[in-house]
């Protein structure tokens, strides 16, 4: 019974993401709210969540307490101290099976640069994106990913949101210019993949960008 409930609410969430799924749509409107209409991000969600979208959770609640301390003793018996760290050795091969989608930089595609704290596309960015749109139109099979990046100032977490806003702003502008939305994906790297590592405005400027890369192979 519980399981059914869980699955149902999951379906609910999925349907919000995929809009217009019949059946649960009434309820989705109630819980989904108004975000669909904002900033033209409506069809942003990918359909990766086609399965459940939620993996298994172990029980992580605290079982005991006391920290395994036995207290001081006037006549202490010997306690064996184990290696203490309950850490597994990293097996690099464990990630070998992780399939990586490959993207490459394309010389003809220009990045968009943003002002501090901002995700508004400036005039020179619009010009760059217009040229990018032309290239995309003349290369109709190319799939492009727009990476949103930030400079090192600000928090890691908020910069991921800011990076997403930048990548979506660039993506949306390309769509406005007539590029098919299905050819454009977005990802935010926040401040985690800077192109420049100095603590200077000249460097910050280069890192506040929407970076366009092309998917390789098929």
């Amino acid at each position, binding site marked *: 019974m519980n399981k059914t409930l869980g699955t149902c609410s999951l379906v609910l969430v999925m349907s919000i993401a995929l809009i217009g799924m019949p059946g649960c749509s009434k309820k989705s409107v109630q819980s989904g709210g108004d975000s669909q209409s904002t900033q033209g991000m409506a069809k942003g969600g990918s359909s990766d969540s086609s399965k459940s979208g939620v993996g298994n959770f172990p029980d992580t609640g605290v079982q005991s307490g006391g920290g395994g301390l036995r207290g001081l003793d006037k006549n202490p018996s010997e306690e064996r101290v184990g290696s203490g760290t309950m850490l597994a050795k990293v097996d690099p091969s464990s990630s070998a099976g992780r399939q990586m989608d490959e993207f490459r930089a394309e010389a003809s595609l220009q990045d968009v640069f943003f002002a501090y704290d901002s995700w508004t596309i400036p005039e020179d960015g619009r010009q760059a994106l217009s040229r990018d749109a032309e290239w995309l139109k003349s290369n109709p099979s190319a799939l492009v990913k727009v990476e949103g990046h930030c400079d090192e100032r600000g928090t890691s*977490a908020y910069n991921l949101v800011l990076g997403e806003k930048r990548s979506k702003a660039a993506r949306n502008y390309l769509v406005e210019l007539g590029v098919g939305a299905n050819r454009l994906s977005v990802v935010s790297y926040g401040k985690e993949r800077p192109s420049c590592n100095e603590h200077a405005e000249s460097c910050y400027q280069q890192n506040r960008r929407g970076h366009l890369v092309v998917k390789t192979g098929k």
Partner: protein
Amino acid sequence: MTQLKLVSAWFGGLLLLAGVVGILESGAADVFLEATRPDFQKISLGVMGIQNAGGPDWLGGRIEEVLKKDVKRSLVFDLVDLPSLGIQTPDIGNGMGTGSKIVFKQAAEKGVSVLVWGKAGLKGTDTEADVNMEGFVYDSGSNELVGGKRYAGSRSVVRLMAHRFADELVFRYTGEPGIARTKIAYVAEQGTARELFVMDYDGHDARQLTADGFLNLMPQWSPDRRFLIFTAYRNRNTQDIDMIELATGKRWTVISLGGLNITPALSPDGNFLAFASSHEGNSELYRLDTRTKAIQRLTINPSGDLSPSWSPNGKELVFVSDRGGGPQLFLMGSDGSNVRRLTFEGDYNAAPVWSPRGNWIAYVCRTHKEYKLCVISPDGQKRMQLTTGPGVDDSPSWSPDGRHLVFSSTADGKSHIYMIDADGKDIERLTFEGTHNSAPSWSPAS
């Protein structure tokens, strides 16, 4: 009449002055007192020494050094330097003989109430033999042995023996488990990748946990310390929330909804996961019931909502929203009800973390274009800036005893990890290697 006016003007001026001074100065005093509990007087403790009893030269000294630092960091004890108080610590050898009586008397006179003595040696004769250690605690006033511990283990656990003994000391005098055996998870740059690591709370013994060659971000501990939950990039392209089991290295995806999926935080009882996801458009907060897997959406607005942190009782969440323009802290019930704004000072407040005792929320505040650590009380009445100077401070995380924070900072150039007392007083740098260490998360106490 004139006199009355004068007096009232003078009095008013005084009040005004007091008000300003109050904001600048006494706020700090409040925080300091409460961070270490208003009624708590540090206990004066002296370490007479951990003597070598047949081990390698470094053995006793190493244990003594680690123990002293642990005692100092506990903030429960005031570690005194006995020789500088004129208290000589004779070689007491294998027991507390007549010489020790004099030490106790001198210590008691100088107000040093707890004395620690110990010795360390090898458990066998061959060079790879295990190490053993004894530590004893004395009350100087009564000349009484309070109690002791005897440990044995391999040479690789020497620091852990000292940590364990330090935690026993804290436990004895406060009933709390201590933090000397806690750990800090963090992110370290490796080339262009960022991988998860775990180190001891004092920065030693760092171990790598992931080896993706890509980005693994912002780890958080499960309440039982067995798992980390963090943001990863599947196919380098799609953000997921993953978990890794520390003991086995087993790793799997727990949230895979599409879009941005960041800032996971497990509730104190482990029954709920709060996180931010943009799979419905823009970044919103969600709450997953980890048992039924039902997801409840907590925020509904066109702005970015992220970085949920649970109150210790699991009833409230503090989070970041830029619904007012720049990022600010907000509070709400853990079911999404009763949303109210917490921060009004400054145009950038982010990365909140609720203290284990519940009385403070630490966060990153932007002042004079620098990103620094601040704390605010959950009622918004008290606020204090903990760090100053240049550099970007980020990702504060509380020690389980609520007396310290760990955070990352570029104050020394590259991003490294630092520990700071909750009153903002002592800062200690924990990492020295590597090109970029960030996103520290302090484990719960064991």
